[in-house]
């Protein structure tokens, strides 16, 4: 491994060697290296194979912007080697090549297939014969894709975190501008977060000679209390919420003010062979040399549109790179070529690179004067070199600002799209705002920081300082020098000139796309897939727009940019997902159910006991002796106040205001469209107080519904949601009374406590609300009591009932039991279209009530015609249990209804169910045909409860 002598700004620790493997072979690195810097130091030039043509690709940006160094690290694909720090023992692998990076069989596409695979070739091929398309598709499919993920994996293995952070000011980008902004705001007392995607604050200062300043500024910022997040790209601006990804953590920052100091992205030039390994941006070459002590090449040619390339040439020269020539695209010598000449470097004003030679590494460069420059057409220079350094202008990193609602426009002076309009609460500083020089960037940062805290601070110094800064930034002398706008040297005879390295889109492809009619930037993007790869246009948007402008004869502003969308940098799904814990409600008895062997399943947002292993037996126990079921999941609402009765009369289609204290009534809840929303019982506790129960899954919606109408009607009613505050059990079966009597002092006799009565009493010593309700069709008591006692009361009742043979029963046996009674379950036997009439509950609707209750008008209309379909019970003799959801056929054999419930009842010794059937088939005794999984079965309609049709047991 060869390194340059110690560099002042270097990030590596030469005393700490680290070893990792690349494609299985060990690579020696130093602490502080990135994977790419270590590999480069070790002599590697090819880092990846391109998406489509499998061309060798080398380092281009060294800043995590381009797709050229995507590798897989410890199995995770898509990692940017140029920013990923090395770790001991890390397994790094190349991605898109077989058998290896050096020899990739698919590279044949590049040699031979190129002309056969223009953009979108697949749209025009493989159309006929149709039956071969799946085969072609398989081939296409398997050629696509870069990385490889495990085919199967049983659970997440990466722990990721969310962190919420509120701040006064969020600064994105810790270059000189961002640091200055953060310091200014924090020193005024603001709570500031500063996010930087690089591993260290400093931005360009770090490798452009300002590392000491960078480190001093960072220290000052920390001192002022700024929270600096490094290796932390801000991914998106979501209406003021900014997501920042840092390793295992996704920070979600909501700040009062946002300062974007995201700098600018150095742009490549488009010329033949501009993708050959060894062609790199000036920033990349400098980073390699200065941050990692790696010499980017031996003999270099530089092409630039600004001073940036000139600086780079001199800097490279200083680290021992022989710089053969600097092709400066600016027409007139900017006077700076003197600097180059002094260093013995040839300066070629008005020239550009038209071709980089070489296949797997640069071997030479061809330079020519630009069209319109003296010598163009006749002069050319061919130089042998191993490095072509380009600097094709800078494109402000505006993505997040645009996401925040800012606008951009083409700035002809600078040759790029800059910010023209800012949304409220957002400011910009530094190069992204057009303040490119270090001092200017610092000044604009400081100003943004001061402004961010303007409201907070007392007047005086900062205000004066702000004015001074504004004056300085407005100085016309600071107007940027005109930069040359690089023409496109896309002479296809010399080879492919790439616009987009992610997707292997060439200048010629853009030309073709326009020719074919995809003549807007958006259509061109979608057709050629330019800008749709991992870089999302950072390296290719500007070139694409320029090419489009040329091809369509529009100016760049008219061509415009494509939409800025999150994420700013690609991010593993795991980092977005956070912790995988989902809220699940559990009743207080949950632990006991498990110990009793219950199968637990979801029911709405609750975890519920489905059964205890023997659903039919559990149901039988309820018929023969007693059973106990946990019904804590029922929604429970307290409706209280002088208007409570009227409120309920307006909500329910039946009358509730005349209910007597201590009595209970069933009610269905309908929408104004007359559809069933929910059902439950309403008990009156006293004159002003009602206790309403809802279905388990409907509880939230009903509470929301009640409070909505309460808000709208403004009645004197209080609502209190008691769903979770109370545990509830249903003790049911012929022996329920005996068992209960032993647990309470209350008189449980049929005379004192009849069907649909409610009472308050202590049960097992606990104050409870008791309700005689019979969903399961036997004598039964619902007992509601404070949730903290759930477990102990449950145990006590089971213990007390042991002599009678009480059994706990779950949801499944309850379904059998209620089906025997033809009690409906809203949401299973009804859907969003069902009305009480269709569901066979006309008695639950009192159209003669004078209140305009919810659903009244629609129900009144519905009542005028008999429903087209009706919910009925049915029975089957041959033991077959139809699938719930099976179709009921009409006489003509077409689908006209549906089975909603079906179970085998051991008590009745037959299969029973409920189904929606056409009105003509709804009368008792009619035979209906059910189509189920290809078979036809007939069943008989039964319109009264199968069990205890007269309800004697219920009332006993």
């Amino acid at each position, binding site marked *: 491994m060869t390194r340059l002598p110690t560099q002042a700004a270097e990030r590596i620790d030469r005393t700490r060697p680290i070893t990792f493997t690349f494609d299985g072979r060990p690579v020696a690195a130093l602490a502080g290296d990135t994977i790419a810097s270590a590999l480069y130091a070790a002599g590697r030039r090819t880092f990846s194979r391109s998406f489509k043509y499998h061309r060798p690709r080398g380092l281009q940006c060294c800043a995590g912007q381009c797709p050229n160094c995507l590798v897989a690290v410890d199995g995770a694909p898509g990692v940017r080697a140029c920013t990923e720090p090395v770790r001991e023992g890390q397994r790094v692998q190349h991605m898109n090549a077989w058998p290896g990076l050096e020899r990739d069989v698919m590279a044949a596409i590049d040699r031979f297939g190129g002309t056969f695979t223009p953009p979108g070739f697949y749209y025009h091929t493989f159309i006929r014969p149709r039956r071969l398309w799946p085969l072609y598709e398989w081939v296409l499919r398997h050629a696509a894709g870069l990385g490889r993920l495990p085919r199967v994996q049983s659970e997440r293995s990466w722990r990721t975190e969310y962190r919420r952070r509120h701040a006064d000011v969020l600064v994105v980008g810790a270059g000189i501008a961002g640091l200055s902004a953060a310091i200014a705001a924090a020193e005024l007392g603001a709570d500031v977060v500063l996010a930087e995607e690089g591993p260290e604050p400093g931005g360009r200062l770090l490798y452009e000679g300002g590392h000491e300043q960078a480190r001093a500024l960072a220290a000052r910022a920390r001192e002022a209390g700024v929270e600096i997040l490094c290796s932390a790209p801000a991914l998106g601006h979501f*209406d003021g*919420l900014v997501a920042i990804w840092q390793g295992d953590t996704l920070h979600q920052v909501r700040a009062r003010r946002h300062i974007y100091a995201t700098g600018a992205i150095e742009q490549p030039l488009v010329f033949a062979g501009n993708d050959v390994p060894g062609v790199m941006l000036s920033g990349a070459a400098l980073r390699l040399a200065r941050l990692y002590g790696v010499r980017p090449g031996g003999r270099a040619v530089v092409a630039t549109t600004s001073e940036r390339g000139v600086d780079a040439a001199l800097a490279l020269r200083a680290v021992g790179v022989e710089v053969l020539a600097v092709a400066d695209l600016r027409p007139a010598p900017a006077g700076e070529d003197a600097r180059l000449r002094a260093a013995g470097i040839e300066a070629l004003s008005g020239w550009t690179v038209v071709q980089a030679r070489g296949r797997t590494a640069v071997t030479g460069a061809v330079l020519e004067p630009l069209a319109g420059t003296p010598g163009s057409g006749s002069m050319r220079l061919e130089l042998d070199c191993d490095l072509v350094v380009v600097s094709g202008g800078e494109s402000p990193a505006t993505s997040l600002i645009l996401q925040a609602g800012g606008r951009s426009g083409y700035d002809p002076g600078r040759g790029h799209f800059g910010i023209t309009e800012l949304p409220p609460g957002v400011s910009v500083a530094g190069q992204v705002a057009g303040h490119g020089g270090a001092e200017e960037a610092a000044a604009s940062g400081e100003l943004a920081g001061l402004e961010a805290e303007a409201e907070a601070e007392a007047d005086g110094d900062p205000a004066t300082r702000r004015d001074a800064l504004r004056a300085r930034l407005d100085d016309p002398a600071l107007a940027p020098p005109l930069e040359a706008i690089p023409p496109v040297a896309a002479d296809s005879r010399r080879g492919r000139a790439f616009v987009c390295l992610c997707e292997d889109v060439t200048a010629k492809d853009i030309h073709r796309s326009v020719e074919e009619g995809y003549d807007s930037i958006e259509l061109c993007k979608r057709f050629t897939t330019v800008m749709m790869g991992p870089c999302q246009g950072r390296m290719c948007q500007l070139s694409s727009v320029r090419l489009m402008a040329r091809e369509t004869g529009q100016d760049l502003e008219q061509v415009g940019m494509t939409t800025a969308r999150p994420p700013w940098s690609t991010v593993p799904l795991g980092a977005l997902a956070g912790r995988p814990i989902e809220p699940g409600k559990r009743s207080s008895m949950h632990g006991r159910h498990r110990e009793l062997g219950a199968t637990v399943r979801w029911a709405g947002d609750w975890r519920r006991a489905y059964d205890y292993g023997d659903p039919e037996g559990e149901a039988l126990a309820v018929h023969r002796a007693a059973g106990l079921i946990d019904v804590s999941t029922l929604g429970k609402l307290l409706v209280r106040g002088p208007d409570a009765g009227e409120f309920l009369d307006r909500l329910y289609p039946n009358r509730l205001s005349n209910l007597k204290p201590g009595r209970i009534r069933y009610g269905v809840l309908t929408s104004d469209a007359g559809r069933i929303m929910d059902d439950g019982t309403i008990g009156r506790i006293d004159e002003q107080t009602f206790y309403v129960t809802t279905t388990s899954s409907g509880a939230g919606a009903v509470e*929301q519904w009640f409070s*909505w109408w309460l*808000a*709208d009607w403004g009645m004197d009613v209080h609502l209190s949601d008691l769903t979770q505050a109370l545990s509830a059990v249903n003790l049911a079966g012929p022996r329920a009374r005996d068992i209960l009597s032993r647990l309470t002092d209350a008189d449980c006799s049929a005379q004192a406590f009849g069907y649909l009565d409610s009472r308050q009493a202590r049960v097992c010593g606990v104050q409870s609300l008791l309700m005689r309700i019979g969903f399961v069709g036997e004598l039964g008591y619902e007992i509601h009591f404070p949730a903290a006692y759930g477990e102990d009361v449950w145990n006590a009742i089971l213990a007390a009932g042991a002599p009678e043979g009480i059994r706990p029963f779950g949801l499944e046996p309850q379904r059998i039991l209620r089906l025997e009674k033809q009690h409906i379950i809203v949401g299973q036997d009804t859907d969003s279209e069902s009305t009480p009439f269709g569901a066979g509950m006309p008695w639950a609707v009192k159209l003669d009530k004078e209140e305009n209750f919810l659903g009244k*008008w629609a129900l009144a209309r519905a009542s005028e015609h008999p429903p087209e379909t009706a919910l009925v019970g049915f029975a089957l003799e041959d033991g077959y249990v139809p699938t719930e959801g099976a179709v009921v056929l009409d006489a003509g054999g077409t689908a006209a209804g549906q089975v909603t419930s079906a179970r085998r009842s051991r008590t009745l010794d037959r299969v029973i169910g409920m189904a929606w059937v056409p009105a003509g088939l709804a009368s008792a005794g009619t035979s209906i045909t059910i189509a189920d999984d290809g078979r036809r079965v007939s069943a008989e309609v039964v319109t009264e409860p199968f069990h205890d049709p007269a309800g004697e047991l219920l009332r006993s």
Partner: protein
Amino acid sequence: MSFVLTCPHCGVREVTDFAFGGEVSRRPRGEPTLRELCEYNYFRRNVAGVQREWWYHRSGCRAWFQADRDTRTNEVLRVGLPGELNLEAPQ
């Protein structure tokens, strides 16, 4: 989470704290015609502009309130409890 809403009781919260209740419409006072009933039940103005709408602070104070929000930008111009925004409903 994207835009925030200011609950009249609790202050600023992420929109995911709230349930959306749709645009504020008027329930017919007396017996509506079939067309009126349909319009009330199903038809919405669905404006591209400022809309007065219902929100429920589901995760917080559990109050329903109204907001005037621009559906083109999601900017919330004002919020209030029912009856507080008694200015003419926005056009």
